[in-house]
């Protein structure tokens, strides 16, 4: 598929040349316009993929639930996103009476903007990246946490008790699941020695003499916890307590309709796709792969992860809010911390480069041996913690059943006697 690569390169050089010649009086403006064009392409890609993803999600979830999904609008329902788009544009927008106008109107815009700016640092192919920030991994998480305030804006600006309550709960959930994400990106950064996403991918490919092992082999526990935290961060099922219609009536965006609601929706899907891309970059090796061109590999991996998201949505029931918080603070965070400390110690004990062994000491092993050691350690921690959690859960359940039995016996005795 190299001709396509070459064609794209020729095209981009051509466009850059045109812009350079138009703005030859000011190289700064030329740079700016090129960057603007690249940003426009990225935003359009995100928006188009949002439309495609809504359709794919509805179809896949429908099939899991043994039904057909959208099949009325156009052949196989393929024009459904278009129909949804037209609906979003033409629906009336009822602003509630005492809502704070500025805050109410700005909130969906801020969420959509933050969701879209995560695509600025994702590497799509070698050399095709919006900007190779040397704090890329950090930046992704910061953007994720920056969009949390917009939810509070939406909840407060709606002047609605339920919206406010939903906003509080949503923020508590999002803020809680940031912590395992942070703690589990750390082993990846330690292994790659850099926060730049391009460097992280390089460490997982066979460039620079690396053995080309994706980080999911090194840190399966980190990958699992990061994936689940990512699902919780985007508010998808089974963590969608906050927008379930039967619960708190759509949560913080209950007073929004039309385009503003569409922006919330877009933010959620764009975020989910970004999590899929980020997971592929951190743990699956990004655009690296043997035969197919790089961007096809990245899209395949991200599509696989997104399919797992849809699979979970169609299969699992909604998780209760206290279960969700317990899972986060009492399972994910302690396990992530223990895993981090163990990984640190092991990575210092077993080093792979002779220069490092000489400088700071440690046992020299081959990269594959280090991968095996870390894999075994990670899986051991995962299985042990799962066993402990299962045992605690069983003990708790038996205790609850014993109390229920006793109460039932008392009630019978009190009534029957």
């Amino acid at each position, binding site marked *: 598929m190299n001709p396509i690569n070459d064609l794209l390169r020729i095209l981009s050089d051509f466009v850059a040349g045109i812009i350079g010649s138009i703005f030859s009086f000011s190289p*700064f403006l030329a740079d700016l316009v090129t960057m603007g064009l690249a940003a426009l392409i990225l935003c359009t890609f995100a928006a188009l993929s949002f439309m495609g993803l809504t359709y794919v999600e509805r179809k896949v979830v429908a099939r899991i639930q043994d039904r057909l999904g959208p099949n009325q609008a156009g052949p196989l329902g393929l024009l459904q996103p278009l129909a949804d788009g037209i609906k979003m544009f033409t629906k009336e927008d009822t602003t509630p009476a005492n809502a*704070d106008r*500025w*805050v109410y109107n700005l909130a969906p815009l801020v969420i959509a903007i933050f969701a879209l700016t995560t695509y600025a640092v994702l590497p799509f192919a070698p050399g095709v990246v919006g900007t190779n*920030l*040397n*704090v890329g991994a*950090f*930046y992704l*998480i*910061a*953007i994720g*946490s*920056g969009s*949390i*305030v917009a939810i*509070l*804006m939406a909840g*407060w600006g709606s002047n609605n008790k339920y919206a406010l309550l939903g906003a*509080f709960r949503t*923020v508590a959930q999002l*803020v809680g699941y*940031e912590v395992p994400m942070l703690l589990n990106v750390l082993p990846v950064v330690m292994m790659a*020695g850099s*926060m730049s996403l391009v460097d992280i991918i390089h460490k997982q490919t066979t460039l620079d003499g690396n053995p080309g092992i994706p980080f999911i082999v090194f840190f399966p526990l980190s990958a699992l916890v990061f994936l689940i935290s990512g699902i919780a961060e985007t508010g998808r099922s089974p963590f969608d307590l906050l927008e379930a219609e039967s619960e708190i009536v759509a949560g913080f965006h209950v007073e929004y309709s039309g385009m503003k609601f569409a922006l919330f929706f877009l933010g959620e899907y764009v975020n989910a796709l970004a999590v899929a891309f980020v997971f592929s970059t951190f743990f699956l090796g990004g655009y690296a792969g043997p035969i197919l061109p790089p961007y096809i590999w990245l899209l395949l991996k991200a599509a696989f992860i997104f399919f797992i998201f849809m699979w979970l949505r169609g299969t699992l029931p909604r998780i209760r809010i206290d279960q969700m918080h317990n899972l986060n603070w009492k399972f994910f965070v302690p396990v992530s911390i223990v895993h981090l400390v163990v990984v640190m110690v092991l990575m210092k004990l077993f080093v792979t480069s002779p220069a490092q062994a000489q400088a700071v000491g440690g046992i020299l092993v081959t990269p594959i041996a280090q991968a095996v050691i870390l894999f075994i350690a990670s899986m051991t921690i995962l299985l042990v913690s799962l066993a402990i959690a299962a045992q605690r859960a069983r003990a708790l359940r038996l205790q609850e059943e014993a109390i229920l039995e*006793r*109460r039932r*016996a*008392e009630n019978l*005795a*009190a009534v029957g*006697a």
Partner: protein
Amino acid sequence: MTVQQVLFIVISLAVLGAALFVVTTRNLFRAALMMILAFFGIAGLFVLLEIGLFAVAQVLIYIGAISILVIFAVMLTRGMQGMVPRNSQAVGAAVTAAIIFAVLLLILGPLRVTVDLARWPVISLFAGNASPREVGGIAWTPANQAIPPVPETYISDFGRALVDLNQYLLPFLLIAFLVDVVLAGAIFIARQRRPAEVIEERQLRAEEDAEEAEAMRRASAPSALPEGAVASAADH
């Protein structure tokens, strides 16, 4: 005027304007939002200083965590809407501010800060014939008065410095302990116990209920009941 200078002016105006709005507005929630805008501006200033790490850290901590904390604290105060803040210390505050300003002028005056419009906002300290000083390991002579550029490896340098015994190891460990203490204090304050009377009252009521239930049972069913049932009723 280079682009950086224009950007610096714009961002500084935004930050100052937002800060002014925060202290003068009556709507607490809008004040919190303007504070977030000020934080963004400060992150932009860090970017202008070429320290991307601090810019992103600013967004993560201040906007992602502390702003949420502040907004939650604002929500905790009742009657947030329609509050009329009154300031009875305005005169005293103005006098104190004027005194501090005068003192600062006296201290910083002799420094003879010269502003070179071509390189502004990089200002030159210790201009003229001031004696060279040592600041941060760099000898500031009148010759090299520009701020040295941030090295490419500043992130790993910072990381190494954090755990270096001769540099920032002690503050690093102290941060952990300080944050521990802060968390313990906040949890202790937030878990206010009800007054002891309420607890006692509840206990009394529970005992009375248990006695009543037992008396009823003894009157209607003389057959022996398992001890466990009665004891657990008293427990509840």
